[in-house]
């Protein structure tokens, strides 16, 4: 039965901001390493949300790695499923999936693909890949918590390009209608989608006003500021509040590797050996 006190990893657990900063860079290094196996990957989109992922997995999410499908766990669904490459190393590090799996990332028969498969990967709360579905899925999970009287939170990580999808706004409308204060969206607003700047491809601003008009509580700040991210997570409205929350996290695509930050073409790509060396050296320089 439900007993959220028997939890391995409680909410708000990390003490050190420095450690979480290092964790975000560790996610970047892992992403580079896994992309090396696949031959191509979503570096820059993962780098833009590395601090967000570090905050969620090492600070905010209530989890029980010994039981990844524990009914009281906080849920985390990816709208932007292509950043699973940054999630798998966290799940492995927390002991939810075997480390060996990482070494066969995307190889024939591997449970780990570019987009996550909930039937194969413990700790993945919902499969993802078709942009725009999973805020609705998260709303369904939040409704289920209401129906069962459970106190878990549901987090959904969306891209700002994802906001082009109409279903996101159907979900936003429904979450406000059903007063899902247990649903939290994070928009990784890195300003870039595959074909270029979101503002040129299909503008989504003013994002804050849009969510506010849909009845959500909205915060907006630098999504690489890990202490701000933790403060925000610690001060989320109580589970039984009636207003869903969204964070517009202003981020930089390719964050953490200067030549990637400068070139939006890195949404999907492959670092050759030279560039990989440069990228790794820059990140490791910060970790040293």
């Amino acid at each position, binding site marked *: 039965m439900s007993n959220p006190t028997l939890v391995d990893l409680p909410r708000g657990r990390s003490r050190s901001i420095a450690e979480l900063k290092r964790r975000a860079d560790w996610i970047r290094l892992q992403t580079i390493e896994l992309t090396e196996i696949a031959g191509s990957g979503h570096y820059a989109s993962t780098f833009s949300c590395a601090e967000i992922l570090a905050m969620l997995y090492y600070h905010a999410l209530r989890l029980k790695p010994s039981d990844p499908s524990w*009914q009281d766990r906080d849920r985390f*669904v990816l709208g932007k499923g292509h950043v699973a490459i940054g999630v798998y190393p966290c799940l492995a590090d927390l002991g939810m999936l075997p480390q060996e799996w990482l070494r066969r990332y995307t190889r024939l028969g591997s449970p780990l693909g570019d987009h996550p*498969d*909930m*039937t194969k990967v413990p700790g993945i*709360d*919902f*499969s993802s*890949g*078709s942009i725009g*579905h*999973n805020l*609705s*899925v*998260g*709303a*369904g*999970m939040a*409704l*289920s*918590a209401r*129906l*069962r009287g459970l106190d878990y939170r549901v987090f959904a990580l969306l891209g700002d390009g994802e906001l082009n999808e109409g*279903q996101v706004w*159907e*979900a936003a*409308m*429904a979450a406000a*209608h*059903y007063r899902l204060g247990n649903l939290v969206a994070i928009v990784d607003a890195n300003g870039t989608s595959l074909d270029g700047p979101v503002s040129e491809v299909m503008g989504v601003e003013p994002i804050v006003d849009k969510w506010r008009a849909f009845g959500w509580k909205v915060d907006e700040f630098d999504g690489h500021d890990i202490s701000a991210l933790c403060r925000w997570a610690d001060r989320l409205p109580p589970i039984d509040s009636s207003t869903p929350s969204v964070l517009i996290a202003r981020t930089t695509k390719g964050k953490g590797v200067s030549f990637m930050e400068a070139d939006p073409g890195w949404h999907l790509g492959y670092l050759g050996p030279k560039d990989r060396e440069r990228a790794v050296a820059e990140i490791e320089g910060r970790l040293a």
Partner: protein
Amino acid sequence: MNAPRPSWNVTTSLPGLSAFVAGEELANLVDDGHDIVVLTADLSTSNRLTDFQARHSARFFNVGIAEQNMMSIGAGMAACGHQAWVSTFAAFASLLCAEHLRTDMAYPNLPVRILAHHAGISMGFYGTSHHAVEDIAVTRAIAGMTVMAPCDAATLRACVRATLDEPGPVYLRLGRGNDPDVHESNVEVQRGRFLRVREGNDVTVIATGIGVQAAVGAAERMAGDGVTVRVLDAVYLKPLDVDAIEIAARETGRILVVEEHNVIGGLGTAVAEAVAMLGVPARIAKLGIEDQYALVAPPSHLYRHYGLTADGVVDRLRGLLSA
């Protein structure tokens, strides 16, 4: 001053939705302790899920006119362990939401039930946007999707009960709600099995939905000519009852498939494929919508026009028997 009371109510005056018993049956199951939730997209009066809402409002969610959102919300609830019933017109369920059926329900193998009502051309004069003559093709091609077509109220109840413990998604293709009773009230369905409606050895009709009653009517008339017609109700469209198809092919040598669906990609295609792969010599004919958009008309007029009636089936059977 009091406004005059309306003498006519659009909901209660709808031409009979007596076949739409899913809401009532699901409410009974919740009473029995089953963890069922029901979602609709502003059509609860058209599919009679109001019957469920009236008894279990906390488990009923009307998401408004946002079918794709409903599909994903239902999948999210199913991922938390509920059996989630989502409902809308078959045209929207299978075409607008085809990707949601595949990616959000079948690929993660979730216990979602898609109540796809007003399938085929049963929306009549509402026109092509509301017709669904492609849904069998779409849903059968989705790995992990079970596809059923209960042709009357009793069979719908049986299908609801038969699939209670199925771990994956089920697409239930329903007619227009006033479908006449074909089967006994205690009919039972068995996964992957057609229902044997009528025995016969001269020719077989494999029918689904509205086609079943047309086939029964045709069989009765053909009996007067001394021709015995076997009638099978393809209540399971997937998995397909290949055994029953093989026996029909061997024993009757001629099979007519009747469906309110495009003749491309539907039950007729599935039966022809099965017979071809079995290598049993049999002649097959298909009665359905001939790869075109149906005209607008009241449904009964459309059924006459496209031959989805006893008369239409008799005509095709005579042609098949003389071929």
